């Protein structure tokens, strides 16, 4: 029997049992669609996080006490503004050095309040990180030098405290101390489920006075060029180690952060794909089951075909193609469903989803292989049927 003929016969058989074929395919459809969708979500999340890390600014070097590793507990920082001055001397350009001292605090305006993160920073922050304002102005050198109680609100905080009026010029109480709002950030959105607009920037000097500390949590440096970023990091760490022999310091670049995040999210995507793969496997078992039923149901047809000259191989190929058709049609439908759902999720929910060609190829390939693997046993059984027994079957 020619292959084209076998395809036609297999397609006819599926058409003859539309409902059953559709239900059998459903298992494969769900499996393939979930593989495509979950991989898309995993990939989309990874891409978005990478974008956000890159969006922080280019050639960024983050200097913190302790080691930057997944699972490491944060260390209480021994750094002070004197250390920042020392780092600035190493860098040679005060505009390239930013600091932060952060703590959670309740922001209050009139009857409204919002628990948020208050960051004590230098006026250099917008130059080091890419951060733009929606309204008003940012902190100035004078604000920092004079510990002026002025604040720049993140978009979420501004909405929470001033839903129906202009926050500029209004008073905000941070941990009970009044600050004047001088600016509002442009919104950034979420990153890994964290609202990046939920923060308030105040002068680092004012923040230290607010919490009664000399501490600085971390220093960020914008390197003049990418080539010497590692060398600059080493020099800064060496200087800080000289000043604080008891503490270890780390200088990490965006590339290193991306690498760590990429590894985590890659594992996450893999786990999601594996879970979805299990449902694809279950779909394959369903195909095998239905093919066995189909062989039994069409025993007499098999007997007749054998009587008029079908060889065992002809019958086997016919049923194998039927199984492969079930899974590949199901696979294509599942791909379409998965892509469609992923696009919807990406457009309508905060969860990012990105379609990758390899996930489509993988899902389709696996569904075809599932058809072959789970079709072989029923096909062999059909091919080996004794024609006399098959013809007798009622």
């Amino acid at each position, binding site marked *: *029997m*020619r292959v084209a*003929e076998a395809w036609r016969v297999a397609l*006819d058989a599926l058409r*003859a049992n539309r409902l059953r074929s559709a239900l059998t395919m459903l298992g494969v459809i769900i499996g393939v669609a979930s593989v495509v969708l979950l991989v898309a979500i995993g990939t989309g999340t990874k891409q978005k996080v990478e974008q956000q890390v890159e969006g922080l600014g280019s050639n960024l070097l983050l200097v913190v006490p302790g080691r930057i590793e997944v699972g490491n507990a944060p260390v209480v920082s021994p750094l002070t503004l004197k250390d920042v001055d020392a780092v600035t001397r190493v860098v040679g350009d005060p505009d390239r050095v930013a600091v932060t001292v952060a703590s959670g605090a309740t922001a209050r305006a009139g009857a409204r309040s919002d628990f948020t993160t208050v960051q004590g920073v230098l006026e250099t922050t917008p130059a080091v990180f890419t951060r733009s304002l929606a309204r008003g102005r940012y902190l100035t050198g004078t604000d920092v030098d004079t510990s002026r109680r002025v604040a720049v609100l993140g978009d979420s905080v501004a909405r929470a405290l001033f839903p129906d009026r202009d926050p500029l010029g209004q008073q905000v109480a941070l941990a009970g101390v009044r600050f004047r709002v001088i600016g509002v950030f442009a919104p950034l959105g979420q990153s890994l489920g964290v609202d990046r607009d939920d923060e308030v920037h105040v002068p680092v000097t004012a923040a230290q006075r607010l919490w009664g500390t000399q501490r600085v949590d971390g220093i960020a440096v914008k390197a003049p060029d990418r080539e010497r970023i590692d060398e600059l990091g080493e020099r800064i760490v060496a200087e800080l180690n000289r000043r604080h022999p008891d503490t270890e310091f780390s200088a990490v670049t965006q590339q290193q952060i991306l690498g760590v995040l990429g590894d985590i999210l890659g594992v996450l995507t893999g786990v999601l794909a594996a879970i979805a793969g299990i449902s694809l496997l279950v779909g394959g078992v369903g195909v095998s089951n239905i093919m066995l039923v189909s062989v039994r149901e069409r025993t*007499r*047809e098999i*007997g*007749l*075909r*054998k*009587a*008029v*000259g*079908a*060889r*065992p*191989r*002809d019958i086997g190929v016919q049923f194998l193609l039927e199984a492969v058709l079930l899974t590949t049609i199901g696979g294509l439908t599942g791909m379409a469903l998965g892509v469609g759902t992923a696009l919807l999720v990406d457009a309508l929910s905060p969860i990012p989803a990105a379609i990758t060609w390899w996930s489509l190829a993988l899902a389709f390939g696996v569904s075809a292989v599932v058809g072959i693997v789970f079709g072989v046993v029923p096909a062999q059984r059909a091919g080996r049927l*004794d*024609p*006399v027994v098959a*013809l*007798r079957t009622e």
Partner: protein
Amino acid sequence: MTEPVAAGSRGDPSTGERVAAIEAVDVSRTYQLDGVSVAALRGVSLTVQPGDYVALVGPSGSGKSTLMHLLGGLDRPTGGRLVIGGRDVNTLAPPEMATLRNETIGFVFQAFYLLPRTSAVENVALPLVYRGVSARQRRERAAAMLGRVGLGHRLDHRPNQMSGGEQQRVAIARALVTEPTVLLADEPTGNLDSVTGAAVLELLEQLNAESGVALVMVTHDQEVAARAHRRITMRDGVVVADSAHPHSVHDRPPSVDHGRPATLISAPSAEPRSASGSGPGHPSGGSGGAAGATGRLPREVERPGGAA
């Protein structure tokens, strides 16, 4: 594979030394059922010549169906020699058996066995599919064959749109579209009313006469059997009468199996038949008793499964 040798000599019977379409020599067939041997055929010898018109008669369980399956290459004997179209089936692997059936044998079944949801012309063309004939040629040949059985106007009708007689004609066309040497018909009129059955029978006889295909027909109908040129009567797995060889038939009484404790005849043999109440007595079994034996056969329909 080339055309069977028998086909070449089909149109030249005057040479005398004709090559048999099917030759069975002391063929037996024993089934193993739950560890027990059941002998369905116990040494059958017969020859079917091209152009023969043979009726195969006998009570249920006499081995007719088993013999038909063997003659059609659907099954293999467990003993003896069976040559179909010049090829010894015991030397053939399953795929070769399939090809042999495709080229040499045409089957017509009592229940038609047409593929549902498939047009008449496609049903008829089915054997050609396994011969690798192109789609266009298949349709041409199938349509021509349907014309010969009087259904040239119903090519694209489906089985459920046709009467029983028409369905059996489609089945006959399917059996003959490959131009086989032998047409095996298992109760071809069994599912049809008498008028339709007679017309189908006439068609089979006409095709037998016109094309020289040997017609071997299993039947319970004595009138049908009487029209055949040759009648072979079976009982208890042996041929008890063959009108082509009136003096060489087995002269074994039905009780012969009592001497063989290892062999069981599971289906109703001589004793249970009278218990069914439809037959007045035992056929005498001798050469002269062939016609008489079939004359007293119960007219029950043999189940396809009652081979043993």
